């Protein structure tokens, strides 16, 4: 049974169903479709056997798709893809359950986006990956532009511009990679395995890597290219926001791990210092920005910038532990940032405000809310025993061997994280309640359930991290880099 | 003999085409177009496409041109257009047309030469044409054309209604 194809297609079918059903049934149907996808993802996990030889334990295809161009429908799942798929499958129902935008279009669009994201995490064909990579933004962009906050249009235009600036070089690089493979072998193909078998000559590789890296860096909001993120996060309705922050930004990091590093290892090594520097800069920059924000959503947005930059540090370091930490952090980052946004959005929905100073004393007034917020914040600042810890520590330890300075920056990011997130917690939950806070009531069961699921995951994945699922895949990437490094050395 | 006829018909057709684009009165242009289409039908006959030629006269000269004339008369379009001044666009257009024409002719002259091959007795007859039209390869296109025609018909009716 082509599990992965069904997995990728199911949300899109769900979107179609949602679009056709009467309004009343749309939301339950969307939720049902996303839950079914979750079930399927869990099934895929159950069938996932990391001991299977070869890179991809689960594989669909390749089935020829555009025969003349050698493009095929090929999906595959390795450990990194699996954790990201699982996070996607968990986050989308959460986002749908918490979203308040009216009508069925947003729900349908989010489901479409889920399909594209799942495709992006599983595609084994470069052209297919590119298609998914580009497709996943459009539904979210539409939701942002149509149902976002007051500054939605500007935010959407900015997202579009930045993405375009990354996409066009990516397209060129994808095409060049394909052309190179065809001229080297005479057979057109964009399959990952085929492309890996014909390494790109060192004269081209840096340019192609740069093309890939630019798009991925924009998508993961690496620091000088992050300009799209704060506004978009501040304006997006919560469903789109959770998907945008929790999933789309990961696609960039995933792109590095699945495509850019394995295809161009020499170039990646040469670009390593740049990635490390950008990452280290981003960790500090994002942390400092988060510290001085007055808007809760913006604090979380900058948190996201800082943590994604830490993932980038790990990718730049390229050691096995740094890569594994990076992949793991990228996955769980989706969970805690999603939860943080959901929590902030709950406050905004009830009080109409989201300033850091608008609340206070919620610890006494809304104990359940505060408990969940505290838990999520602790997970976000990588307190051991919660999900954020293994990723962060692996990145820092793994990076030290290559670039101690970047590791120090990463560790400083951990300190800064405590500074800015505890500031939020202190202002929101501690102290005396403000006028705004007095009218709030604690979480009702409906919004609690998805949040509780996320909270449980944050604890569960902290106690029992699935890093060993990720490592076979990241080790392979690290080994490729290591080979390239030893070739380069003499 | 064939070549002479072809040159005659073609020259007349080209001349008529020239008249089409140079008359100020739409009515004259339409009449010149009819003539041009008739002469082209003659060329089709020489090129062993008698059925196409027949349709050319029936459909184009018979139906389409009548439509044109109908519109011209309906709208009472007199020679309200002085022949265009040679504005920048017109100038560029003429030069372009010249380039396109010369280049294409030169291109064709390089690529193509030699007489036509022999053809069977049935070539170009309605039967053969029908057989070709209805064989598997063209069937889909034929259906597409029929849909297109229907759509155009409906569209024309809708557009023609007084209150749009």
């Amino acid at each position, binding site marked *: 049974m082509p599990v992965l194809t069904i997995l990728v297609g199911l949300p899109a079918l769900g979107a179609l169903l949602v679009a056709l059903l009467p309004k009343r049934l749309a939301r339950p149907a969307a939720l049902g479709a996303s839950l079914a996808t979750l079930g399927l993802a869990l099934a895929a996990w159950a069938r996932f056997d990391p001991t299977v030889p070869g890179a991809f334990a689960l594989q669909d295809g390749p089935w020829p798709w555009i025969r003349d161009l050698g493009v095929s429908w090929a999906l595959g799942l390795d450990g990194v893809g699996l954790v990201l798929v699982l996070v996607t499958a968990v986050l989308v129902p959460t986002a749908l359950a918490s979203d308040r935008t009216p009508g069925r279009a947003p729900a349908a669009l989010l489901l479409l986006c889920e399909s594209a994201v799942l495709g992006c995490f599983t595609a084994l064909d470069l052209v297919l990956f590119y298609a998914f990579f580009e497709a996943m933004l459009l539904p979210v962009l539409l939701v942002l532009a149509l149902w976002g906050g007051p500054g939605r249009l*500007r935010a959407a235009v900015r997202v579009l511009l930045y993405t375009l600036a990354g996409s066009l070089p990516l397209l060129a690089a994808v095409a060049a990679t394909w052309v190179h493979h065809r001229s080297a072998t005479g057979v057109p193909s964009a399959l990952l395995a085929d492309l890996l078998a014909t390494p790109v000559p060192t004269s081209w590789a840096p340019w192609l890597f740069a093309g890939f890296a630019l798009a991925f860096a924009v998508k993961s909001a690496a620091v000088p290219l992050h300009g799209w993120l704060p506004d978009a996060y501040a304006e997006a309705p919560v469903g789109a926001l959770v998907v945008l922050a929790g999933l789309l930004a990961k696609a960039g990091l995933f792109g590095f791990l699945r495509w850019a590093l394995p295809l161009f290892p020499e170039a990646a090594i040469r670009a390593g210092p740049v990635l490390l520097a950008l990452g280290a800069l981003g960790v500090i920059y994002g942390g400092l920005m988060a510290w001085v924000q007055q808007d809760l959503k913006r604090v979380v947005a900058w948190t996201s910038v800082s943590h994604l930059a830490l993932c980038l540090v790990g990718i730049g370091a390229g050691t096995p532990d740094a890569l594994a930490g990076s992949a793991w952090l990228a996955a769980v980052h989706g969970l805690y940032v999603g939860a943080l946004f959901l929590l902030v959005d709950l406050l905004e929905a009830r009080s109409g405000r989201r300033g850091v100073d608008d609340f206070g004393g919620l610890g006494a007034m809304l104990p359940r809310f505060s408990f969940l917020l505290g838990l999520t914040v602790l997970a976000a600042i990588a307190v051991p025993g919660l999900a954020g810890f293994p990723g962060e520590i692996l990145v820092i330890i793994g990076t030290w061997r290559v670039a101690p300075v970047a590791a120090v920056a990463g560790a400083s990011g951990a300190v800064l994280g*405590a500074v800015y997130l505890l500031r939020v917690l202190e202002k929101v939950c501690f102290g005396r309640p403000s006028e705004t806070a007095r009218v709030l009531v604690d979480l009702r069961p409906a919004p609690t359930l998805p949040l509780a699921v996320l909270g449980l995951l944050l604890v569960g994945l902290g106690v029992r991290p699935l890093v060993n699922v990720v490592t076979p895949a990241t080790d392979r990437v690290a080994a490729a880099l290591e080979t390239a490094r030893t070739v380069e050395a003499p | 003999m064939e070549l002479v006829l072809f040159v005659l018909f073609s020259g007349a057709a080209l001349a008529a085409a020239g008249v089409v684009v140079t008359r100020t009165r739409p009515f004259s242009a339409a009449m010149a177009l009819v003539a041009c289409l008739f002469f082209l039908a003659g060329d089709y006959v020489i090129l062993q496409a008698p059925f196409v030629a027949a349709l050319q006269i029936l459909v184009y000269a018979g139906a389409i041109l009548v439509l044109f004339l109908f519109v011209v008369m309906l709208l009472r379009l007199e020679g309200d257009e002085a022949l265009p001044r040679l504005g920048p666009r017109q100038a560029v257009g003429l030069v372009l047309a010249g380039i396109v024409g010369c280049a294409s002719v030169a291109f064709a002259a390089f690529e193509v030469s030699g007489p036509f091959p022999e053809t069977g007795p049935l070539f170009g007859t309605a039967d053969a044409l029908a057989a070709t039209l209805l064989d598997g390869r063209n069937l889909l296109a034929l259906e597409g054309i029929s849909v297109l025609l229907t759509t155009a018909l409906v569209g024309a009716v809708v557009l023609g209604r007084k209150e749009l």
Partner: protein
Amino acid sequence: MDVALLWTLPGLPLFGAIVLAIAGRRASPAFAASMAGGTALGALGVAIWTLAATLRGMGARLAVDLGTWFAAGPTRASAVLAADPLTASMAVMVAGVGFLILLFSAGYMDAPEDRPGSWRFYACMDLFLGSMLLLVLADDLLLLFVGWEGVGVCSWLLIGYWFQDPVHAAAARKAFVVNRVGDAALLLALALLVGALGPRATLRIPEMQAVLAEDPSLLAGSATAAGLLLLFAATGKSAQIPLYTWLPDAMVGPTPVSALIHAATMVTAGAWLLLRLHFVLALSPVALGAVAVVGAASALWAGLLAIFPHDLKRVLAYSTISQLGLLFLGIGVGAGTAAYFHLLTHAFFKALLFLAAGSVVHALHHQDVRRMGGLARRMPWTTAAFLVGFLAIVGFPGFSGFFSKDAVLFAALAARPTDIGAGTFPLPVLLCMVGFVAALLTALYMSRILFLVFFGRYRGEGRPRESRPVLVVPLLVLSALALFGGLLDLPAWIGVDSGWLTRAAGPHLGGTPPAHGGAVEAALGLGLALASLAVVAWAGRRWVDRQDSTDSVGSALPGTARFLAAGGRVDGMYDALVVRPLRGLARSGVARLEASGVQRAGRAAAALLEAAGAWNGRVLQRGPVQDYALGIALGAAFLLLLAAVS
């Protein structure tokens, strides 16, 4: 009993915490207190059993391996708990003191406004205890880090227990953030160790010790860096210079929390880390010297600061910093056993002092020594307990503090300068003298609060009464420990069966067992005791029944006194040197860069696009069909020409 029982040591308190967190408000205060107390008692029982088991074959090592926690590349976190006499005795101390503090809490946290939320208090205390036991027993440095951060989180939760007061909330955050700075250093130290050990990298403490013993050159280039990073990490948790500033502020928390944090657990974590990783420190004399200097400086500095505050608990907080400074001094001069001995005795008498202070605070509902006095008559049991603690901390001969302090100071005196990277400079002697002065300062500030609080006449309102037995019983137990704790490691010059701790835990602390110096050591100890008594006598004359406590000392040196009374203005200095520049950088540097650079670039690009779109709409897309056709023709002509040319 089974070895796997070791996991119940951190497990029982954690279980209690989880149960209480789930029960929430449904848990009655009595249930919450007994849950926490019961789990602590259970842990104490297991700890005692563990200690007995390890002692049976003196130095035996029990380990329970639950496999890999997570691993990638050379970094491997293993879920392994291990107990040897050192860790087991520490666990007994932690669980025992923790249990007594929880017992005390049951009486302390009975204010009507605290009762409904007390489940939170007990859950956090339980979590704290569990984290600390994990830290103590962890065999793997990453597992140790779990406990390490765990106690940090719990201290944040507990210091901010009365979170509706912004002062408490700020103190809690300060504690967390300052600790976090140290934690980051520990992380980097781990990274350095993993990197330096290369293919033989391990984070298991015994394995690391074995690897380094086999090939010390692995750490050749970076031993000092590793040692200094570890020291910096330890200064965070153990509140040493430069990261001590969180501790005095943390006194706003409930008194049992202060006792737990300052006596038995959190503050000892840093010292514990250095003791566990003594083999790393031993590779770098410079790092050892730095530890000793930091310790001596902290002891002196905190001793000076402790003379002035009006807040009873704040004095005790500074005293903790000072005592831990002595402990660090001991570690630095290679006297691990002496340091560990002081750690244990300090845990006993400092917990006692805090709980006695708590008993006072509970009776008076404030912590200001200016409004106390003459409590000896009104609260005799508390006074007796405090007096025992006082004698122990001051080092009255026969009390526990006398032996442990003497052991540390003598070790400093006996150390060789080259061992601590000082070349020929007589640093050890200097350090010993600093320690000596710090010990005299201890006598001074402790006498001050003793006389101001318990002697003279009562200067406050109301009629304070002796606390209830539930508060007093833990005091009595701790008094016994503070009194007899010295028996754990009697010095050789006493002449009876001595040095039990040295024999039991010493082998796990590295270094050569300190040569007990007989007469010199005795003279040092007794001399210190005599000098201290003189100070106490002087202080008694000064402070019994004085209205304002600081003036008497301060009149001699007004400027210095004001400076020290303000905590040396260190908070202000850190604020000016670190916090404000950073926030300024964030606010005016990064935020402005963001606004003017990145965001403006985005805006400009958007504006450009918009302008292009508008131009397209206004000029191009007006609808001149023939211009479009011209465009098509141009394109076609171009393509044709291209084809013709090629």
